[in-house]
């Protein structure tokens, strides 16, 4: 499988009155052709900033993609592209679905026109062609009566229907990469399931790669091929879905997994990761998670852990994987899951 998108050493800062907030601190990942990569993490971990920077949608006035950051797509470094050149990529090669369908459609524009816009802009479609394609797209995303619906305004649709329209807009030009920024968070659970099914179905039909941002691990399990866990502006663990769910190595991932409610256990109380996210105005020395990590060691306070290799697809940034690290017992929920993991658990090599 070849990589369609590679992010290398991405550093992003926001300039605020209080000072420089280092929101993204050296993120590396790649997106393979046809796969779904989920990026998970708590609020403020940098998920959305990372993906917005791929689209170059961060506010120009106060954000800065640092020198040396690389966002490689189609042989180009998107981080250094001109605004005009970026306009040709947005909506055509890379498109995006946003969190809140209630606010992401223009309330004073007919939805047919909103879907047709990228087609006319990027594919040089005539108005009639664009309308025809808009009808097909509405059919594709499962909206009944497209001929009537195409002339209606967003307020005439429900939340789930609007998200289907947003998906139709995003898929209009058959993008190579689709970024979905928490596309189901604002929807209720049954609609969530429908939208997720739709996205999986469409991915097979048009062969696009998806970056799926979420903080819902249940969603991750149902859509993703690979998972990247973000914390404090960094990716702390990355692996296949099975590796992350059944053989996670980073204490933060352990925390996420332990705090997932399960129908198998009879625990009354849900596990909570103590403390709060790090202050990225003054990022902590060493491991950013150390202050909240009950497995933290002395070295975590002073040295940032490198990415240790667990398998060819699985990496985690924790000193616990160092050959000299002591044996520890991960939380019960993680141990239970490890029993179901087919591979052996081995200590990593750097």
């Amino acid at each position, binding site marked *: 499988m070849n990589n369609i998108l590679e992010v290398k050493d991405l550093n992003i800062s926001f300039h605020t009155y209080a000072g420089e907030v280092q929101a993204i601190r050296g993120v590396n990942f790649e997106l393979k052709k046809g796969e779904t990569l989920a990026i998970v993490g708590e609020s403020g971990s940098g998920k959305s900033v990372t993906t917005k920077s791929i689209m170059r949608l961060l506010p120009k006035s106060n954000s800065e993609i640092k020198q040396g950051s690389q966002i490689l797509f189609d042989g180009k470094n998107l981080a250094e592209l001109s605004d005009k050149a970026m306009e040709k990529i947005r909506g055509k090669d890379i498109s995006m679905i946003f969190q*809140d369908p209630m*606010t992401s459609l223009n309330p004073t524009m007919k939805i047919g026109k909103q879907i047709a816009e990228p087609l006319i*802009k990027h594919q040089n479609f005539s108005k009639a062609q664009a309308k025809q394609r808009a009808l097909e797209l509405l059919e594709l995303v499962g909206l009944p009566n497209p001929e009537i619906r195409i002339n209606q305004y967003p307020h005439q649709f429900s939340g789930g229907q609007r998200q289907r329209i947003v998906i139709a807009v995003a898929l209009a030009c058959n993008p190579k990469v689709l970024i979905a920024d928490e596309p189901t968070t604002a929807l209720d659970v049954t609609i969530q399931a429908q939208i997720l099914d739709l996205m999986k179905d469409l991915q097979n039909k048009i062969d696009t790669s998806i970056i799926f941002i979420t903080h819902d691990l249940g969603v991750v399990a149902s859509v993703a091929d690979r998972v990247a866990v973000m914390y404090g502006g960094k990716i702390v663990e990355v692996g296949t879905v099975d590796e992350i769910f059944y053989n996670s190595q980073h204490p933060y991932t352990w925390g996420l997994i332990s705090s997932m409610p399960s129908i198998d256990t009879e625990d009354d109380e849900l596990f909570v990761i103590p403390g709060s996210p790090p202050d990225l105005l003054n990022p902590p020395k060493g491991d950013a998670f150390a202050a909240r990590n009950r497995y933290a060691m002395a070295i975590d306070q002073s040295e940032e852990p490198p990415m240790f290799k667990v398998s060819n697809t699985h990496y985690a940034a924790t000193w616990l994987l160092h050959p000299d690290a002591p044996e520890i017992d991960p939380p019960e929920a993680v141990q239970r899951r490890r029993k179901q993991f087919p591979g052996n658990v081995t200590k990593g090599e750097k």
Partner: protein
Amino acid sequence: MGKYVLQRIFYMALTLFIVISLTFFLMQLIPGSPFSTAAKLSDSQLAIMNAKYGLDQPLPVQYAMYMGNVLQGDLGVSFQFSNTPVTELIAGRIGPSLSLGLQAMIFGTIFGILLGIIAALRQNTWLDYGSTFVAVLGKSIPSFVFAAMLQYIIGVQLGWLPVAFWRGFEYSILPTIALSIFPISIAARFMRTEMIDVLGSDYITLAKAKGASGYEIAFKHAMRNALIPVVTVLGPLTVSLITGSLVVERVFAIPGLGEQFVTSINVLDYSVIMGTTILFASLFIFTVFVVDILYSIIDPRIRLSGGNN
């Protein structure tokens, strides 16, 4: 829609009726009579005059008579202009006020909205500060100062345009500019605030994510959404401009309505006061109606329907 319009027309008529009645009785609270300022009249002469114009009747009778006349389209005769019918007086003077007001409004809104959009798109640049400066000037400089400045610089020094009078289009240019500086500043300030608000919304980010250019985002996506609150302020402003700015009409020696209204209050010319009030109120009520229709055109979420739906 049809039902809505009918309903609105009924309410518009009702509003107008209330305005006329209130003005009629309020006017009686001003001390004196139309003849008290004129040449000294003996008591018997005054009684004859009052009887002639029906002012000796009890107030309710006067009111009933006036209302009856108004319904027949008769607004009475003026006391100050030797018995000229009020309708004739207004008809002779409304032309200049109407065309001047409309010109100022159209020029002022279009220019002001553009200024506001530019300021919002180039936030915190010299273009933004420049447009803010124009808007603050427009609101703070009295229109007669601005009018006199225009007359002196463009009319006298440069000699490009006539300084005063009302004899054709080129005579209307300077007063139009003088009168439009206020709508320009109002439209520019509102439009800037609304545009900045709209430009920060999710659907603008989505439009960007679709690859729309800055121009397309501003004019295809943001402008229509930002216009809705601006229309609200511009409606009533139109009326006050159409019905004539007293000062600007004075400075440019334009025979308009504004001046007539004020002088008739001073001399208690009852029927002219009433006639002008009825005209102003009708225009105002009608403009509010037009603004509501405009809303529904600009914003599809607003549907006009009769009270029962």
